[in-house]
């Protein structure tokens, strides 16, 4: 919202946004849109239109043009007109303009509304303003108004309209951009709708004209008809789509046009589609202007419809309703907007309940009393005061906590506070740690706990006077009184057995069975370890790491190595009694690297030799972990096991597994068994590991089924990581593996950790997701916790919350540092509480929501059939949106899909979750892959889930080679691919380079060093190092992408029309997937239908 200001300048963007933005904008509009949009849009629109056209075929395009004309004429046209003017090529403008228009409407309403939302509105307005040239704008406005005028008339006409209009008025209430309706409803209503809008607009925007334009749209509903005329032709879409997006809520603008069509159609539709159609249409109206457009065309165009079809009446709806993809909310747009709006200013955490910038935005954080969003992100920063409200909204209240998150170099890591022997100051009752929210009273002699309200004495050594505001005068000298995140040095009371811990140890446990040897893994690994051991994590400025290392190799027996520095040569001790594992040596197993370097080097030299001729193919697994754990136990320290494992452990031993991979189970009630461990032995083992502070990192190198679901149990429960390299071959996978390994070994880890989340009275942490173990309901036990691991915590009400005091979270993590120091890390976060649902919806974060929902669903598959899980998700999503629609959005046609601004991406992201490999596997996805992904997601943070579910697709040749920044992304749909371009696609795990079939030869030459497209090796994983700007840039880009992710992404070069392309297309998540996943458009329609069902 704040952004608004910036927005104004943006104007141009605003317009572009329109495309999707339509929705977004409207929603965003307010916020982000403004600035960022401009540029992106330009680019986007351009392409988009192109695509749209292509995809939509004649229709879409045609529409635009056709529309344009009409638009110009009509006005709504503004947008259209804009198009027209700019030329289709500029579609951007066109759309944008339209969009803007739409937004405006929305905005206007808002504007009128004055709501906080105002912000959004303003932005909206601004955008609009800019886009349209002044002249145009004016024209538009005029048109709009007119339209508005018209509209009235229309309402009666179009069913949809009716609502829209209402929306419009209502829209005022909808602060959120998209949701005009909402604003209007709330507040707007009072305003004269049309005028109000207008008025609003003007105020908001400098560019009244636009506003006017918008207004018109608002009123547009009515106009539609006029628009329609022109639009109907099918082009309706173009226009509508654009506009719609913005308006989602207020379809009016575009909707109008389409609407017009609609209206036109409406008449027909009813007959045609029965109720459904209307529904759709309505939806369209909302966001889906396009839909309407389609209707007319329907019959044919809508392939997508079919998908829907199922839901709505396939027959009618489908065809007709097709939505213009450009008209629906675009993640890309939202991301860009947020980047532009919020990337420049640091995020200051001083204010309670602020929604931080999106995870995709680069921003700095200034800790002024609340934990940085890098540590904690919430699904909503405004919590309903009562559980009834919460239940009504169905918005999960969850926090995604990454206690040891890495910070950018510009931000200081948490201060360490040492309170000496007395230890950290805590509330006597609830044991919360001293934090900035504690209230000092009685002149500083006591403090009231902000969590449980208990009054505690301030110990004498901690006493300090208060200033006139009741603040301690030393508040700013003490991190625990002024910062959101800080650390305490723990006293011996916080240590196991009341003994300060010894430094942790790393144990490398290497599979030396036939497969591991043959693939070259063992040799590679041993070679790497020699140098890697110099880079063990160390604390602060320590010269050398305190971590001790140990080595074990194994096949069906275990080999321990004594590498004591005094030995002339390493000693190998074989333990064959795998049924009853024990550690055969005490002294010399865990050693200091620098002291035993010679022996270790000698050992690592010999391991590959010793087993070079092995023919042992069987392996054990549980005993290996057991051994590592026992070793740590014997050494009385915490630590981490690095397991390098190749095959299903079929050797006779505890934890022996059998191959139970059965694809026939997919889509049956037994599918869940594929995700469940085969045996309970691993859970038991994990429990022991956790008790010992033994974290397990597993590197898998399977050639076939290894039952990841079972093998990953221990890593999962001990806070470890699993890495999987299917069909590992040194030549191809070396870089990826080594890079992951280096990172994994070097990363800072907290050991033997316990995390407790305390909350102020009224809410309570009830559920936890992530890689950890819990032996009771409150303590999250983590044998190891690194900077990538995230814990998602869900809260529930157990009492009424107070708007005034808000809600507080305190996450305390007790852990042992790499140097063996026992510490407490505290993160505090204050949230607002609300009595209005609208506040909730206005302060949500969709990415976090998706993070929670994905984790929830991924855990659900353990116990329920996948289909049930999917349905639950859809239902929940529908309920969230329906609640919004019902309670926050201005009354409007039931056919309108109105999305909260903050959640307008919820459908698209949710769809991505639904069609992810775990919930809807394709034929090529192995059981292991699913289990692997499932457990990966469990501990992902918000940024990771974001890109994982909605991959980034970057065109490489569109932006000038010189530009150093990342090229703007495009939406993940095949429609967005130009066969004359090259794209990078990444989702945090995979990295593809897609080469269009008709890409310029020069580009091919400079990237691949071959003369033609046909000579490019498909599946290539390394780009040749060439000395030309393009090659450098692409490689640089790839490197920077990899640097952003916690795992190394192996590059796969995919050629258009090549076999591998299937693989690639799997990640184009807006499209229909082969496995039956719905396309974005289809899903949105489905969602709309669900919502409508709920509402009716």
């Amino acid at each position, binding site marked *: 919202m704040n952004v608004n200001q910036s927005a104004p300048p943006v104007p141009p963007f605003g317009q572009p946004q329109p495309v999707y933005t339509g929705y977004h904008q409207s929603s965003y509009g307010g916020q982000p849109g403004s600035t960022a949009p401009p540029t992106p849009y330009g680019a986007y629109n351009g392409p988009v239109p192109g695509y749209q056209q292509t995809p939509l075929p004649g229709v879409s395009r045609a529409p635009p043009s056709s529309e344009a004309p009409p638009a110009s004429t009509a006005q709504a046209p503004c947008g259209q007109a804009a198009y027209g003017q700019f030329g289709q090529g500029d579609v951007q403008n066109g759309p944008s303009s339209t969009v803007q228009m739409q937004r405006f409407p929305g905005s206007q309403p808002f504007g009128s509304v004055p709501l906080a939302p105002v912000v959004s509105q303003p932005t909206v307005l601004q955008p609009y303003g800019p886009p349209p040239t002044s002249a145009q704008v004016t024209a538009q406005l005029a048109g709009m108004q007119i339209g508005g005028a018209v509209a009235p008339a229309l309402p009666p006409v179009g069913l949809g309209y009716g609502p829209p209009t209402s929306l419009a008025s209502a829209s005022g209430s909808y602060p959120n951009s998209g949701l005009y309706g909402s604003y209007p409803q709330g507040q707007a209503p009072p305003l004269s709708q049309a005028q109000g809008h207008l008025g609003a607009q003007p105020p908001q925007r400098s560019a009244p004209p636009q506003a006017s334009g918008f207004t018109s749209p608002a009123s547009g509903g009515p106009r539609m008809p006029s628009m329609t005329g022109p639009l109907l032709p099918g082009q309706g879409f173009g226009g509508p789509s654009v506009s719609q997006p913005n308006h989602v809520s207020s379809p009016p603008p575009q909707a109008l046009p389409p609407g017009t069509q609609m209206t036109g159609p409406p008449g027909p539709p009813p007959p045609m589609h029965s109720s459904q159609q209307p529904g759709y249409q309505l939806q369209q109206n909302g966001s889906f202007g396009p839909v309407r457009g389609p209707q007319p065309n329907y019959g044919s165009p809508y392939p997508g419809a079919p998908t829907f079809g199922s839901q709505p009446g396939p027959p009618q709806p489908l065809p007709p309703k097709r939505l213009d993809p450009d008209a629906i909310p675009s993640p890309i747009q939202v991301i860009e907007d947020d980047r532009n709006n919020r990337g420049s200013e640091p995020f200051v955490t001083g204010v309670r309940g602020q929604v931080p910038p999106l995870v995709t935005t680069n921003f700095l954080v200034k800790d002024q009393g609340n934990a940085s969003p890098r540590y904690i992100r919430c699904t909503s920063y405004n919590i309903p005061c009562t559980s009834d409200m919460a239940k009504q909204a169905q918005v999960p209240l969850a926090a995604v906590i990454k206690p040891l998150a890495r910070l950018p170099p510009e931000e200081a890591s948490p201060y360490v506070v040492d309170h000496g022997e007395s230890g950290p100051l805590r509330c006597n009752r609830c044991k919360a740690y001293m934090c900035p929210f504690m209230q000092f009273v009685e002149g500083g002699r006591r403090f009231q706990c902000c969590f449980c309200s208990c009054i505690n004495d301030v110990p004498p050594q901690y006493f300090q006077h208060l200033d006139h505001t009741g603040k301690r005068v030393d508040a700013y000298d003490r991190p625990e009184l002024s910062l959101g995140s800080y650390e305490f040095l723990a006293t011996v009371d916080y240590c196991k057995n009341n003994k300060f811990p010894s430094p942790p140890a790393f144990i490398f446990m290497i599979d030396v069975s036939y497969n591991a040897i043959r693939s070259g893994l063992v040799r590679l690994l041993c070679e790497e370890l020699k140098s890697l051991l110099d880079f063990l994590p160390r604390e602060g400025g320590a010269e050398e790491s305190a971590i001790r290392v140990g080595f074990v190799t194994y096949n069906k027996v275990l080999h321990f190595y004594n590498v004591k520095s005094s030995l*002339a040569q390493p000693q190998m001790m074989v333990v064959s009694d795998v049924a009853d594992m*024990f550690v055969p040596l005490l002294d010399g197993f865990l050693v200091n690297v620098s002291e035993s370097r010679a022996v270790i080097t000698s050992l690592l030299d010999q391991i590959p030799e010793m087993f070079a001729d092995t023919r042992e193919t069987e392996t054990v697994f549980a005993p290996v972990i057991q051994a590592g754990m026992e070793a740590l136990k014997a050494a009385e320290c915490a630590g981490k096991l690095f397991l390098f494992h190749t095959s299903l452990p079929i050797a006779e031993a505890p934890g022996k597994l059998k191959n139970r991979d059965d694809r026939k189970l997919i889509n049956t009630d037994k599918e869940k068994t594929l995700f469940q461990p085969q045996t309970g032995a691993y859970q038991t083992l994990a429990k022991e590991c956790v008790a010992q502070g033994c974290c397990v990192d597993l590197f898998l190198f399977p050639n076939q089924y290894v039952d990841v679901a079972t093998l990953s149990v221990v890593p999962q429960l001990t806070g470890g990581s699993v890495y999987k390299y299917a069909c590992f071959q040194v030549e191809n996978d070396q870089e990826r593996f080594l890079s992951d390994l280096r990172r994994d070994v070097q990363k800072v880890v907290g050991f033997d950790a316990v995390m407790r989340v305390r909350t102020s009275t009224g809410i309570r942490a009830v559920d936890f997701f992530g890689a950890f173990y819990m032996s009771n309901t409150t303590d999250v036990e983590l044998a190891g916790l690194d900077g990538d691991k995230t814990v998602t915590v869900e809260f529930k009400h157990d009492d009424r919350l107070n708007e005034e005091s808000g809600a507080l979270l305190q996450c305390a993590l007790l852990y042992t540092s790499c140097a063996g120091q026992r510490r407490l890390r505290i993160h505090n976060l204050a949230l607002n509480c609300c009595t209005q649902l609208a506040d909730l919806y206005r302060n949500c974060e969709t990415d976090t929501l998706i993070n929670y929902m994905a984790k929830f669903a991924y855990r659900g598959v353990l116990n329920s059939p996948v289909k049930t899980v999917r349905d639950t998700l859809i239902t929940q999503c529908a309920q969230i949106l329906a609640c919004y629609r019902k309670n926050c959005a201005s009354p409007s046609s039931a056919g309108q899909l109105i999305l909260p601004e903050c959640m307008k991406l919820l459908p698209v992201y949710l769809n991505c979750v639904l069609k992810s490999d775990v919930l809807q596997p394709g034929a090529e996805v192995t059981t292991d892959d699913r289990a692997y992904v499932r457990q990966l997601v469990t501990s992902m943070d918000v940024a990771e889930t974001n890109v994982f579910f909605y991959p980034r697709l970057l065109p490489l040749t569109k932006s000038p080679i010189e530009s150093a920044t990342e090229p703007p992304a495009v939406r993940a749909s095949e429609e967005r691919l130009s066969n004359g371009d090259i794209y990078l696609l990444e989702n945090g795990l995979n990295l593809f380079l897609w080469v269009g079939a008709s890409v310029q030869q020069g580009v091919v030459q400079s990237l691949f060093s071959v003369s033609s497209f046909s000579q490019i090796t498909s599946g290539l994983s390394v780009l040749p190092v060439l000395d030309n700007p393009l090659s450098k840039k692409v490689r640089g880009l790839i490197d920077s992408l990899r640097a952003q992710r916690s795992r190394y992404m192996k590059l796969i070069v995919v050629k258009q029309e090549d076999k591998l392309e299937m693989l690639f297309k799997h990640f184009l998540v807006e499209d229909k997937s082969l496995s039956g996943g719905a396309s974005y458009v289809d899903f949105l329609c489905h969602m709309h239908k669900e919502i409508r069902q709920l509402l009716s």
Partner: protein
Amino acid sequence: MATYLEFIQQNEERDGVRFSWNVWPSSRLEATRMVVPLACLLTPLKERPDLPPVQYEPVLCSRTTCKAILNPLCQVDYRAKLWACNFCFQRNQFPPAYTGISEVNQPAELMPQFSTIEYVIQRGAQSPLIFLYVVDTCLEEDDLQALKESLQMSLSLLPPDALVGLITFGRMVQVHELSCEGISKSYVFRGTKDLTAKQIQDMLGLTKPAMPMQQARPGQPQEQPFVSGRFLQPIHKIDMNLTDLLGELQRDPWPVTQGKRPLRSTGVALSIAVGLLEGTFPNTGARIMLFTGGPPTQGPGMVVGDELKVPIRSWHDIEKDNARFMKKATKHYEMLANRTATNGHCIDIYACALDQTGLLEMKCCANLTGGHMVMGDSFNTSLFKQTFQRIFSKDFNGDFRMAFGATLEVKTSRELKVAGAIGPCVSLNVKGPCVSENELGVGGTSQWKICGLDPTSTLGIYFEVVNQHNAPVPQGGRGAIQFVTQYQHSSTQRRIRVTTIARNWADAQSQLRHIEAAFDQEAAAVLMARLGVFRAESEEGPDVLRWLDRQLIRLCQKFGQYNKEDPTSFRLSDSFSLYPQFMFHLRRSPFLQVFNNSPDESSYYRHHFARQDLTQSLIMIQPILYSYSFHGPPEPVLLDSSSILADRILLMDTFFQIVIYLGETIAQWRKAGYQDMAEYENFKHLLQAPLDDAQEILQARFPMPRYINTEHGGSQARFLLSKVNPSQTHNNLYAWGQVTLTSLQPPPLNTWQLLPCSSLL
């Protein structure tokens, strides 16, 4: 042959056999009335420098139930080339190779002087000897160091092609792989878990011969044909490796807290050693040599817990049934011993510690497999070092004095049956026509397995005369017994030694004098003692003593001449004269008396008693006492307190101890330093003489005895005093001594030359 004495001696020298009766009572009834059973002490591998083995195989009786070996007692029809078996009377054709046979061209086995003959079997692959060291690492530093040195030294004594292996144990058990370059490798086992042989072999990777797990680098062709190559390697190949490995052996690294015993997994270590050999070299000569410095404290076979405050079981505890681990541990070791015996391997136990080490429980390992048992105070003593070295002594041919995997088969003529054997053997459970239903010792079989034996290993074999009284043996008939010992010679050859003896039958009623005169009281004493000790293992001490007493009384009744009510009239003939004395000392011996001995000591003494030859056994029963004085050459004197005189030096040999005791005066003379004066050189010689003699004994005996050099009033004099017949009480002994104390005379000047007394020994 002039006297029975000479006859007996001659027989012993030639055949290694001493019978209790050299003329046999011809009926069962008579025989039982003789009190001392018909039995013999057999030293199967008695050294016979004059008996070169023949390089062919024996000729067997063709009757499948007999299979006796052709011997000088068989009747031979040279013309028909037939021979009649003297046991079953089967007539057998000579094999083709014997076609040239005639009265003047006899094969060795038919010549009377070859009543004992040794055949060399050429068949079958010869496998090298195997030595598996099982070493306790829970030792004090200097003890371990000494042990390591002994072990390293022993490597140079082993036959170069012998296979050696190393297992070390403490809290864990480590089986060392010996062929590794650049890294030393071992398999580790938990010390608390009993594993089956199969498990052990699985865990050692011995079950899949097709899988040489590692090391077979191309370019280095693997010549080792055995899977077990990893653990058992020819000494010449890994001499250096093993020496280094032993050198690097560290004390068990696991911390032992105050008040605890180190955790010692002897039971599992032995079990693994047994399992290893069982899986790799069954029925091949192999020695498992266990070196332990304390009691097993954990796992199967534990003898005592690790709490130092709980002492290890004593006889008192055992009688009170208070030894909680004893039965279980014994069972464990018995199981191991039986398995080992089945595989033809033997287990040596070298236990050196000041406290007990659990020999009581472990004894069967050595007893049943023919292994050695050595008990000492520390590995850092010459007692252990020299004893251990002596294991590898060689005979006149340069062969090791050890043989393996022997089976002893006894065949008797039909008037006799074999009732059992007592010695380092186990039954092979071979029933046959010559097996008696009554058992004496280990019976019920005609074959026994002796897994490890040396030239002095001696078994007592007991017979039963089954001839019925009403079916007299024809006049001049002779009973025959054939002992067939198949064994693996230390040169790895398979050999068969056959001893065939015959004795006359006599009718006990008419010819009792003959029988009486042919009584071998020494052999009888030892044989009876063995029976007594054998019983003592399973019965209460007093019962055994009572049994012994009754036997003695009955014997005296039968063969003594006396007038009723007149003790002074009692007479025994010469051939019985020493027997009561033997019995007297036997009753007092540590073999039957446990008082003042720990259970370990008792086990140790009994172990040796059950395997030594007659001479040594007699020493054990009745220690020998020599007296050295200026009055004449050294002389054996009565084992009686009256032999302790002030001007004598006594040398007592109890087999386990050599005690030199200086009489009071002698001690004072020595204290006064007379031996350093030139004019008293004869005194110096006198002092030196027993030392030299003792040294000679020490050099020859296995195990090396404890050597005690003491004097009148010395604390160690108790070793002597406890053995002598206390005809004078200690009190009057001392009183008597004090007299001379007051008037110390110098020793006599050099007047005569001391004679060496070695001839007496």
